[in-house]
């Protein structure tokens, strides 16, 4: 491998800039997990009976399960009794009614993160739900959205204001029995976002949730549920950061999307949890289950993700294409640097006729990072005339990293067409040479090539996020050399 110019080295070794801790007045419960803890969380949130029962069922089921070990990631065993399952910034009893009531420290923290809640409100026209540790601290633009009948609020609020909707949809896409981390999340989830777009409404602005882990030794378990009724449209953004700590923290979230006839949900994530330091110490374990169901005719669900953070990412945003003519999409850029590990991909389950799905996955491995694409494309017998196109490319930067591709393709009828292609390579010396011969510096050349490599995915991101994603990639990688 050729030498790394120092300017590039500076860039790749730039430290995590969101690693600060904010001194918030926190309310935390004792470490450990038991049925009492589940009851305690539920009572703290003043939850109705049905939800407590659901949590308990999930908890009891979790006890019967074992941690999965099939993925390509390696990590020391997690002690589930050494985690705090509930932490919340202390606020006035009833929670903030408007932004002015939010703890100034929390607001400062979000300002520091570049998510100025007030500015957001005034300028960018993005409705934000900010979640710190376990609870939602602020939701902007609520009243404006309410005029259209859109519900966008924290999950715990929705449990009280729209219990029938929660009851109807919670766990229908990702049942608590789905996997180990889902069962855990279902038992102890503390908050998250809820979003409901009524029939025929096109959501006029991007909805966004910002997740922040702040307290030490805590796990973050949030749940997002988005329901798009017939003919509606919503674009949803999610971002995350966490402070720098030596100890690994667990993040096990669940996201459920439901799209009815002709509805479209676009879900974008920029995940930048703390990845650990250069020696691989600390960082977030990001074990997330995301799944959407295209329940209706001609419905569409699109996942876009940029994964740059976390010590370990274990995440497969999936789409169940149940409705005829429904469409599923997955666009992903996953970057692993230093000792980061990512095992990510998607599942496209085709059940309805004429369903189609597209998967574009770009993996970048640098340092000692291990990046795995794992995907399933399943065409069931009923899904006649279905179509899938998959492309997963990996870029290797440095000779100590790894890139792996494990697609599973299962086709059970003859009228469907599935295509998969994958490639793995480093940045070609000829490509760099060409750029240099045109007067570009080596760094600019590499940056140009990396950006080009990710372009297919970035162009799918909403504007606000595309900028952030590009910056993020720049910080951790742009200018690296192969």
């Amino acid at each position, binding site marked *: 491998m050729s030498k790394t110019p120092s300017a590039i080295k500076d860039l790749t070794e730039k430290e995590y800039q969101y690693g600060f801790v904010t001194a918030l007045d926190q309310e935390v419960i004792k470490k450990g997990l038991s049925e009492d803890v589940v009851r305690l969380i539920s009572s703290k949130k003043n939850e109705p009976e049905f939800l407590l029962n659901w949590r308990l069922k999930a908890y009891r089921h979790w006890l019967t399960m074992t941690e999965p070990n099939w993925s390509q990631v390696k990590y020391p065993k997690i002690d589930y009794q050494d985690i705090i399952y509930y932490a919340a910034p202390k606020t006035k009893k009833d929670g903030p009614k408007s932004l002015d009531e939010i703890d100034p420290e929390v607001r400062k923290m979000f300002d520091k993160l570049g998510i100025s809640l007030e500015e957001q409100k005034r300028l960018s026209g993005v409705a934000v739900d900010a979640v710190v540790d376990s609870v939602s601290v602020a939701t902007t633009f609520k009243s404006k959205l309410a005029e259209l009948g859109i519900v966008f609020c924290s999950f715990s609020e929705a449990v009280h204001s729209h219990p029938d909707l929660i009851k109807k949809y919670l766990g229908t896409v990702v049942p608590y029995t789905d996997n180990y981390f889902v069962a855990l999340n279902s038992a102890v989830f503390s908050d998250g976002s809820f979003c409901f777009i009524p029939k025929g409404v096109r959501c006029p602005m991007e909805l966004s949730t910002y997740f922040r882990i702040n307290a030490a030794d805590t796990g973050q378990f949030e749940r997002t549920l988005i329901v798009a009724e017939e003919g509606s449209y919503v674009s949803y953004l999610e971002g995350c950061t966490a402070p720098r700590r030596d100890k690994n923290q667990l993040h096990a979230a669940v996201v459920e999307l439901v799209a009815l006839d002709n509805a479209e949900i676009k879900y974008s994530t920029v995940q930048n949890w703390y990845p650990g330091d250069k020696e691989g110490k600390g960082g977030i374990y990001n074990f997330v289950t995301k799944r959407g169901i295209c329940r209706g005719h001609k419905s569409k669900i699109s996942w876009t993700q940029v994964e740059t953070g976390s010590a370990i990412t274990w995440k497969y945003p999936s789409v169940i294409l149940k409705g005829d003519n429904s469409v599923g999409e997955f666009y992903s850029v996953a970057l692993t640097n230093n000792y980061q590990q990512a095992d990510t991909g998607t599942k496209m389950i085709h059940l309805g006729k004429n369903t189609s799905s597209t998967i574009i996955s770009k993996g970048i491995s640098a340092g000692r990072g291990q990046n795995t694409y794992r995907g399933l494309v399943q065409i069931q017998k009923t899904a006649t005339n279905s179509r899938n196109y998959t492309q997963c490319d990996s870029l290797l930067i440095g000779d100590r990293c790894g890139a792996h591709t494990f697609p599973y*393709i299962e086709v059970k009828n003859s009228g469907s067409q599935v295509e998969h292609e994958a*490639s*793995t390579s480093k940045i070609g010396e000829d490509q760099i040479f060409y750029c240099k011969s045109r007067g570009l510096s080596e760094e600019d050349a590499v940056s140009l090539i990396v950006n080009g490599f990710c372009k297919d995915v970035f162009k799918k991101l909403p504007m606000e996020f595309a900028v952030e994603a590009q910056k993020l990639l720049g910080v951790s990688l742009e200018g690296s050399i192969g």
Partner: protein
Amino acid sequence: MSWAAQIEQHSRSSKANWLKNLRQHALNEFNSKGLPTRHMEPWKHTKLSLIPSNPLQWPQQKTELLGFGLKLEPKKILDHVLKGLDCYLVTFVDGHINESLSNFPKDQGVQFSSIGHLSDEDVVSFKTKSSQHGVHSINAALFQTGIFLKLDKNAVLTKPFVLFHLSSENKSPTMKHLRHFIVAGEKSQATIIEFHMGFNSNDEFETSYLNLVAQPDSNILHFKIQEASMSSTHMGTLDAKLEAGAVLRSYLLNWGGRLARQEYYVALDGKGADCSLKGLFFGKNEQNSEVIIDLQHNSSNTKSEQNFKGVLEDKAHGVFYGKILVQKDAQKINADQSNKNILLSDDAIVNTRPQLEIYADDVKCSHGATIGRLDEGALFYLRSRGIGKKEAEHMLLLGFAEEILIDIDQKLIPIKDRLHHLLEATL
């Protein structure tokens, strides 16, 4: 009797040291691993009920061979399938070498013997302790016969060498296990053709394992034509170790068998080793046709290519599991893999898992997989030229399938003819 008991009995009765060791090792491995289960990744989609859970009987040696109630004449069969191919030949009838139907290799610098004559020194070069799973252990512990072929430095096998395996009618379910050892010395050249044919309407369990060591700059061309009977479970393995500059080209026609599985374990151990694996797996009725590949780039400047095509009809089930592993520090690697499948019926199923596992950075690896039906555009074109639907489909399928053998030598035309014949007879 259980497999473990049968293996134990066998391992005690062996005389030669190497064989004793091999069998003892197989016994230990079988005891720890057992038969494959659904939880083992490469067996995830396999119909495991077709692997007998207990040993079957050994076939009896007969004076008169029957197949489907008719008298078999191996000589005629040979003439028919090989169409006068000028070759060296070892014929196995029900797992035993038939000398009168054989023509052993006689070239200079070529040693040939049956496995019974193998000495401890001969076996040194083989990594004989490489059971991947229980079926390999069964083979290692129970194989009755096989050949040993050794090419000295610069030796050239002047004719293709055919290993012709024939199974005849048996009254009860039977099993047979074969293991062949081939060492290709430095700069040697050989063409090996493994041919399996079955005329048995009763259940049969056959394992066939080919150990190949290709020493520096040797050049091996390998074919496997598998036409086992429809009531048999055929488990074939090619276990090859390629040293510096060695070249292996292997072609597979996976045709017969109720469950037919061909596994490849290729280790590109030496700098500049080059391997290409190509094949066609075909299934109809309720056949299960599987190709499993574990290809390891252990050294720099190595190159590999895989191209497998599946054609599945009726309720057939095809499985492709192909893995390319590039080890740390194995730089300047080129690896390509392609798996294309055509489903001809709505009840046919294909599971394909092309896998790349890469721990080095200076590599160019790619894989592609497609599953679909015949190209509508091409069909339309042919039909617009006045060709009937059936015929047009037939032409396209032939084109799809025969591409696998497109680059083979003119001298091996009988193999192409055989593929053509199989396609014409089955499609």
